[in-house]
C-alpha cells in the first residue's frame, strides 16, 4: 500500500490513525499488571487474576458482539467447556503448565464449531435466543454428566498447575501465569480484529447484504469468528480452572453468560480492552463490594449498567484517549 497523500485538509471529520498515546497506555497497563504481585496483598492479587480471566472471556465475547454484531447469550458454554476440559485433563492426564490450557482452548473451539453452525444462520433476536438455548443445553450436560463433570457438585480437587515439576501455589506466580496466557489470548483477538478478516466482520456487522454483494460468503465468516471467540473463551475457561481449581455448572450457566455480556456493554461493545475494563468492574462489584452489601451485588451491577447505558452510550471505551469520535452512523 502506498503512503496516503494528504493533499488538502479534510473538510469535516477526523482521519483515523492510532495515536501514540494509546500505545503508551497499553504498555503502562501491561507493566502495572505484571508488577501487581510485588505490591498487592494476596487477596487483591487473586481478585486481579479473576479480573484477567473474566476479562479474556469478555474480550472474546466483544469480538462477537461489538465487532461482528453477534450478540451471544450462550458464550459461557465455551468458557465452561474449556474449564471442565482443563480440570478433567489436569486431574486425569497431566497438570503440566500449558497443556491443560491448550486442551481448554481446543475444547472451547470444538464445542463452538459443533453448535455455532446453527446459531450463525439466525439473525438479531433469533441469534440471541438460539445462543441462549445452546448455553442452557451445555449447562444441562454439565449438570447431569456426573462421571465426568461431577454433576451439580462440580469438578473439585483439580491439581495445581505444574511448571517443570513444581506446582504453582503462590498467588503471585499464578497471577503471572494467567497474565501470560491472557496476553496470548488477547493478542489473538486483537490480531483478528485488526486483520482484513476483522474488517470484513465489521462490514458484516454494519451491512451484511453489501458484503455479500461484493462476493463475501458472510455465513462462513460469522461461523469462523464464532469458533475463534469460542476458542479464546475456552482458553479463559482453562485459566478459571487453573485459578479456582474447581469448576461448577454455574461457571457455564446463564448468569456467567449474562455477566460477560454486561461487561462487554459496559466496556463499549466495539472495544476489546473496554470489555476487559467492563469485566474488571463487574468482578469488582460482585466480589469486592457485593459481599458487604448483604448479597445485593447484582442490584448494584444493575444500577451501574443503567448508568453506563444512559451516560456513556459508547461505554467505558467511549471515553477516548487522544482519539476522535468512533464510527457513528451518519
Amino acid at each position, binding site marked *: 500500500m502506498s503512503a496516503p497523500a494528504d493533499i488538502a485538509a479534510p473538510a469535516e*471529520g477526523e482521519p483515523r490513525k492510532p495515536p501514540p498515546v494509546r500505545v503508551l497506555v497499553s504498555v503502562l497497563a501491561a507493566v502495572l499488571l505484571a508488577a501487581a504481585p510485588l505490591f498487592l496483598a494476596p487477596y487483591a492479587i487473586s481478585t486481579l487474576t479473576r479480573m484477567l480471566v473474566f476479562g479474556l472471556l469478555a474480550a472474546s465475547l466483544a469480538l462477537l458482539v461489538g465487532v461482528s454484531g453477534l450478540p451471544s447469550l450462550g458464550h459461557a458454554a465455551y468458557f465452561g467447556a474449556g474449564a471442565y476440559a482443563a480440570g478433567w485433563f489436569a486431574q486425569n492426564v497431566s497438570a503440566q503448565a500449558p497443556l491443560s490450557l491448550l486442551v481448554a482452548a481446543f475444547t472451547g473451539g470444538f464445542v463452538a464449531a459443533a453448535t455455532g453452525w446453527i446459531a450463525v444462520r439466525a439473525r438479531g433476536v433469533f441469534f440471541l435466543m438460539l445462543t441462549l438455548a445452546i448455553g442452557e443445553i451445555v449447562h444441562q450436560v454439565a449438570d447431569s454428566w456426573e462421571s465426568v463433570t461431577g454433576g451439580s457438585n462440580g469438578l473439585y480437587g483439580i491439581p495445581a498447575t505444574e511448571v517443570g515439576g513444581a506446582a504453582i501455589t503462590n498467588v503471585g506466580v499464578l497471577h503471572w501465569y494467567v497474565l501470560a496466557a491472557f496476553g496470548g489470548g488477547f493478542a489473538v483477538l486483537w490480531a483478528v480484529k485488526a486483520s482484513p478478516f476483522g474488517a470484513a466482520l465489521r462490514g458484516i456487522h454494519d451491512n451484511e447484504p453489501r458484503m455479500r*454483494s461484493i462476493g463475501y460468503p458472510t455465513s462462513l465468516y460469522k461461523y469462523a469468528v464464532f469458533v475463534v471467540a469460542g476458542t479464546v473463551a475456552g482458553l479463559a475457561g482453562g485459566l478459571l480452572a487453573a485459578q479456582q481449581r474447581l469448576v461448577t455448572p454455574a461457571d457455564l450457566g446463564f448468569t456467567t453468560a449474562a455477566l460477560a455480556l454486561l461487561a462487554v456493554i459496559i466496556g463499549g461493545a466495539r472495544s476489546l480492552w473496554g470489555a476487559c475494563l467492563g469485566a474488571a468492574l463487574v468482578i469488582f462489584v460482585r466480589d469486592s463490594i457485593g459481599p458487604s452489601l448483604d448479597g445485593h451485588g447484582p442490584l448494584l451491577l444493575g444500577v451501574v449498567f443503567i448508568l453506563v447505558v444512559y451516560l456513556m452510550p459508547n461505554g467505558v471505551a467511549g471515553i477516548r484517549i487522544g482519539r476522535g469520535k468512533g464510527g457513528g452512523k*451518519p
Partner: protein
Amino acid sequence: MSLHVRDLVSGYGRSTVLHGVSFELRRGRVLGLLGRNGVGKSTLVLTLAGLLRARSGSVRLDDRELAGRRPDLIARAGVGLVPQGRRVWAPLTVDEHLDLAARRSRAADPTWTPERVFDVFPRLAQRRRHLGGQLSGGEQQMLAIARALLTDPTLVVLDEPSDGLAPAVVEQIGGMLTEMRAAGVTILLVEQDLHLAFAVCDELAVLEKGVIVHATDTPTFRSDPETAHRLLGVG
C-alpha cells in the same frame, strides 16, 4: 451476448412486483432503466444481485444462469452492485472499503485498481483514511462505485447513483460511467435523472407496473418526447 434476462418474476412476501421482465444487453453497452417511483426498478436491481430471490425466470450473464443463486456467488460471477442510498460501511475507512473489495477481485491482474479509481475521483484519494460515515453523499457514491469496480465485474448495476447529489458531483459520476464503458464494462443504470441517462446510455428502457413497456436506443427515445412524457410524466 452479455446479459440476458427473461420472464423474471419477483416480489416481496405475497405481493408480486416484477411480472415477467425481459431484456438483453450486449457486452460493453449501457442500458438506462427509467420509470416512475414504485414501478419495480429497485426490485429488479435487488433480484439481479440475488438479494431478493427470483420466483421464476432466468438471468444469464455470459451464458451462466444466475437466478436463484446466492448474492456472493452472483458477485463472484461478475455482477457489481451500486445500491440505492450508497450503503457504504459507516465504521470502515475508505481504504478498508477498497481493500475488502479488491480481496474479492475476480481477476488476477485487475482492470480496476484504487489508483485508477482515484484518477477519476481525486476527492476520494484525499479521504482514504476517513470512515464511510464521515463522507459526504457524493463521496459515498464515489466510494460505492469504487467498491463495486474493484471486484472487477463484467456487469455493473447502479441504482439511482445521482439521487440527492449536486450537479457537479453527478457530472463526475457520469464521467466515471463513461470511463467504465470505455473499459468494456456492461452497465445497467437505473436513473430518474434524464440528463445523466441521455448522456451515458446507449439504450433506454421504461419499466411500468413490473414489465418493460418501451425499449429503444437513446437517439430514438429523445426524438419522441411524447412517448417519454406519457411514460414518465416528464418532457
